[in-house]
């Protein structure tokens, strides 16, 4: 079974490729890249003229909600949302019910993914049992079961001594620990960013320092232990500066940023729309500018959506009582193309790298490259596609997005996983 993609603009930053070429896929792997490739007998041929052929996009921060919260999302619906959004692989966080803090839960997630996953699924194990921040989870067993990283995402491991031990204990497994950097004592009961908007509209705020204190702590712990700490959803200018300084000193720290933190500011919260509520909160314009700069210069390694599905009943009503988080898989790529690449804030090849090669590198995942022999995970974009975000059309089970009605240019066109076009 082979597939020939004709005349697309192939952008493969890992191999310094950016040219109109043909891409031949055979037996689930990249076979060949070149001009005027002939279609082997029986090959499916796709005319990709005017399209952008990229290594499959990888989202290393999603919540698939299964097991336990199937009313919000399942492996089936979440991976379909991923494929629809142009992602060929996702890494899913551990805050399921039961928590993914032991091998049996990891096995279950992987089994669901084998049966009904539309894209590749990489589980992330909990750092502490039941995400309580008190005792280490069975980290060796989780690694053996296939967890590609560890994180208590959604909660910050407040006990620095315990976190240090987690970083040490996981060193032999060669996988990063992902930090949800939020000092709980600095932001009790918060609902949005602390700033002029929170003061005006009367919602309790979380200061940027609540994130930065923990980013600083975790960089120091990475330095102490030699471990790789990855900071989830970086959201402040100060955190960008800390990561930049840490990297300059040779500390093994990396970071991701979400599309919503790159596109929206705290001003969006003035509507009291619970779909503008997430952790970390939407920040100031100055923070957004620093995040874009950090993403462009490589301080921030990748974009990850923090896809956080919630049922309508959890995201309507009073803002301060609504759940944190928004869905992101189906809006990420169009937002990034329209709001960052089109106005010239981020070069297209950089964006492609931040969505493919860089996340693969961070979590040691196969993929992120279109070199011969690589798994044939390919994301094809249509840069001219005009779309208006319509949450009713989402493949995700949930609709909690602040981007409904946004008119965007550019988006995913075809998602290929293991050489097969994902049909939704």
């Amino acid at each position: 079974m082979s597939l020939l993609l004709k005349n697309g603009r192939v952008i493969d930053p890992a191999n310094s490729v950016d040219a109109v070429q043909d891409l031949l896929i055979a037996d689930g792997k990249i076979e060949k890249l070149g001009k005027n490739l002939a279609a082997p007998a029986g090959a499916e041929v796709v005319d990709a003229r005017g399209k952008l052929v990229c290594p499959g996009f990888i989202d290393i921060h999603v919540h698939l909600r299964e097991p336990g919260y199937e009313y919000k999302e399942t492996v089936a619906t979440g991976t379909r949302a991923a494929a629809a959004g142009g992602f060929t692989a996702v890494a899913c966080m551990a805050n399921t019910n039961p928590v993914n803090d032991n091998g049996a839960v990891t096995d279950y997630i992987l089994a669901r993914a084998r049966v009904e996953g539309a894209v590749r699924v990489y589980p992330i194990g909990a750092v502490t049992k039941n995400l309580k921040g008190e005792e280490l989870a069975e980290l060796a067993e989780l690694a053996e079961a296939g967890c590609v990283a560890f994180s208590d995402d959604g909660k910050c491991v407040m006990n620095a001594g315990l976190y240090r031990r987690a970083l040490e204990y996981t060193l032999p497994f060669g996988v990063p620990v992902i930090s949800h950097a939020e000092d709980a004592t600095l932001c009790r009961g918060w609902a949005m960013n602390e700033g002029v908007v929170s003061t005006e509209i009367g919602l309790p705020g979380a200061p940027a320092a609540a994130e930065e204190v923990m980013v600083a702590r975790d960089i120091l712990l990475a330095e102490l232990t030699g471990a790789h700490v990855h900071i989830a959803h970086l959201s402040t200018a100060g955190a960008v500066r800390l990561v930049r300084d840490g990297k300059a000193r040779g500390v093994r720290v990396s970071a991701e940023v979400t599309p919503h933190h790159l596109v929206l500011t705290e001003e969006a919260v003035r509507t009291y729309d619970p779909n503008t509520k997430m952790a970390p909160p939407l920040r100031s314009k100055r923070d957004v500018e620093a995040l874009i700069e950090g993403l462009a210069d490589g301080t921030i390694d990748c974009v990850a959506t923090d896809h956080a599905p919630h049922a309508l009943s959890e995201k309507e009503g009073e803002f301060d009582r609504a759940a944190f988080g928004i869905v992101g898989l189906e809006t990420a790529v169009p937002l990034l193309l329209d709001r960052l690449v089109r106005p010239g804030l981020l070069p297209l090849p950089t964006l492609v790298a931040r969505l493919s090669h860089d996340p693969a590198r961070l979590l040691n995942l196969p993929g992120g490259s279109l070199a011969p022999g690589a798994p044939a995970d390919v994301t094809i974009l249509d840069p001219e596609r005009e779309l208006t975000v319509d949450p009713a059309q989402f493949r995700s089970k949930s609709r909690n997005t602040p981007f409904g009605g946004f008119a965007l240019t550019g988006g995913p066109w075809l998602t290929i996983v293991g050489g097969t076009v994902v049909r939704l």
Partner: protein
Amino acid sequence: MGWTRKDLLTMRELDAGEIVLLVDTAASLQEIATREIKKVPALRGKTVVNLFYEPSTRTRTSFEIAGKWLSADVVNFSASGSSTAKGESFVDTAKNIAAMSPDVVVVRHSSAGAAQLLARELPCSIVNAGDGAHEHPTQALLDLLTIREHKGHFDGLHVAIVGDITNSRVARSNIHGMRKLGMTVTVAGPPTLIPPFIQELGVKVSHRLEDAIRDVDVIMMLRLQHERMQNGLIPSLREYSRYWGLTLDKLARHARPDVLIMHPGPVNRGIELSPEVADGPYSVILDQVAKGVAVRMGVLLLLAGSKGGGDTP
């Protein structure tokens, strides 16, 4: 100028003309309180629902009396002992009440934005009677009416608002209203009770009571919630009252002789206000409460009377 809004949600969204219209309307209705028969037919056949999700005595009673003096049918719904105890959501409860076709829903809720939420969801008029730490517009209007009656005008007056500004919807509504009417506002309190960037609302900030009350025309003291101590915002009530409590002695030494003392109530006697000040000659606290009824009559009249059907008194 006329009133065109469906709802009264914030002082922030009103312009000076609208604020003066509300204050003037309230002023003209004050004499009803002096009549032997305190009833006019203006809102006969109209229904006002008081939807109170937070304990409140004075505001709810004030709206109730205001509605009744205007001949509206007034229904009180409080969160305890109702469907909310059975797990019904705020929006569902409100939609159920809306299905009974009230003309005005007056809402008090601990969540900022709750009144906006109802205004989006319900077809009837919404009056914000306090939403979290956001706004409490009728309180600001009654404060403004009180100030104008005692000082004769707004322009150029200087007001000090003292206490827990961070958690005060009264402070926010008054700041917006007073700034729009040309008044100068100083907010004062320990830094832990002053929200960040409050200067951007056009106010001055003071961290010393003695400085804040010097040369001002009005001192508005805010209620200190006792739980602020547990949250580590102040060391003790004793220390708070020593440094931030207003006493006759501090007034005599630092304030002008014609200063007005206001408080939105309920007063923690002996904490933010000494009893001698609360009951003293500078205090217009009970006058504020009396004007509250007039303001709420004015608001109900402009919202429910303007759509036709109601007679003007």
